[in-house]
């Protein structure tokens, strides 16, 4: 009985903390090796305004919307098994995701057990056309909730390609095959 209780405790607390949290927290944002030559790397950030206890978004889903492959999903997450042994593609609201050629829309975001499904309008405005393999910076989206009963809204911050983001992206791809597709950020003035 005690064994079952211990097991239940472990399972129930799995969602709250992980033994690897201290190590995982130290891991930098890093792009994984391309799944294939045709893939592109997409860099996206999501800020969530939600008070003291708001958790960062941990998972984003992109859905392909062009006719030949409509409906297929690709996601990136910080919630996966044995994550301590892997590279970190999600950190502090920054996401790196690999997409194959196609038309993609941001479909949903997840934070713990909370899911945000994007409205049709928001999905269409997030649409990206991936043709030539490359590295794309989509900038920052801010998830706002005006008041207790207000609806969530997603606002584009327009910072794609900014010096700070270029530096973050460069750090994430340095030493990987993606590096050749990204311009090195200008060095800081002495």
């Amino acid at each position, binding site marked *: 009985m005690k064994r079952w209780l211990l097991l239940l405790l472990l399972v129930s607390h799995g969602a709250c903390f992980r033994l690897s949290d201290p190590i995982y927290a130290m891991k930098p944002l890093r792009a994984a090796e391309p799944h294939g030559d045709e893939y592109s790397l997409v860099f996206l950030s999501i800020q969530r305004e939600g008070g003291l206890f708001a958790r960062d978004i941990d998972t984003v889903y992109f859905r392909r919307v062009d006719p030949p492959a409509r409906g297929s999903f690709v996601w990136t997450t910080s919630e996966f098994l044995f994550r301590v042994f892997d590279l970190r593609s999600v950190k502090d609201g920054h996401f790196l995701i690999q997409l194959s*050629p196609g038309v993609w829309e941001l479909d949903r975001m997840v934070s713990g057990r909370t899911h945000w499904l994007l409205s049709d309008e928001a999905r269409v405005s997030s649409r990206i056309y991936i043709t030539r393999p490359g590295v794309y910076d989509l900038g920052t989206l801010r998830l706002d909730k005006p008041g207790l009963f207000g609806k969530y809204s997603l606002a584009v911050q327009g910072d794609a390609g900014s010096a700070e983001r270029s530096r973050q992206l460069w750090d994430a791809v340095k030493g990987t095959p993606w590096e050749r597709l990204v311009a090195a950020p200008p060095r800081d003035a002495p």
Partner: protein
Amino acid sequence: MRLFGLTLLSGLCGLVGTARADASGVVGGRLLLRAGTSEVSLAAARAAVGGERIALELRRGAEVLEATLDEDGYFWARAPAGVYRIEYLLVGKRAEFFAPQEVVVQPGALTCAGTLGLELDQIESLGANVNNRVIVTDQCAETTPRLRKAAGTATERVTLARPGPQYEHTTGVTWRDLAIGLRAEVAFGDFRVVRGLFRIPPLSREGPWSRWIFLVGGGALRGDRDELVRDVTLGAGIQLWYFDLLAIGGARWPEVQGVNTGPVAGGVVRVQTTILGLGLRVEALPAKTAYLTVDLAPLGLLGSLL
């Protein structure tokens, strides 16, 4: 002697150079736009999408090149020999994606890839990716003379564009998928059976094997006099969303009092998450009975903590 060596070297370099020059070829064909059943010229299509530039690109791996596309829809591209994908039509900053077609560039040859008919419901929706269909037809007898004028390569060949795989590289089964397939199960019914299971997940994301799953397991139960009865299970079935539907077979031995032993046959319906699973196991052999099963993936549990 040195002079001979230098001559030989330069000759070899020349040969290599020639070989490199011959390693490229020209591929061409005709792009035919259709709205419903009527043909639409490139100029009309351009006008329908607000004068946006329309272009055709070919890709091999990370290498992309733009084909020359004339007003009548004839296209051609000189490229290193190999197989290239045509999967979209650039429409300004957007692109209309269609079922990927593979075309072949043959060394030193002009290869006709046929006529690529891209059919849309309305030409105004070009670039909006609403709906489209690609049909490749062999009209190379009409197309090649026109391509010859533009491309000007001696040897002429016909290798029609053919449908390519939707995904070139997919992530298959990972060690994580296999690790969570190792499960410890307890079945509650006439007896309590404890088993170790290995559930082999679908081994591919597409095609006929994308839903098939297999199950291998072994365990034991105790008879009336606390004698141990061994149990082996093999299963095959399909995965539907979160559900597994399996036909199972196996054996239970040795014969002990109070336990039906012998060949086992039946079916399993189970639902699972990464860590926990719940199922119903119905057996027709060795006796008609049903078990409620609960299973746990120890490595899944460990992995969720690491």
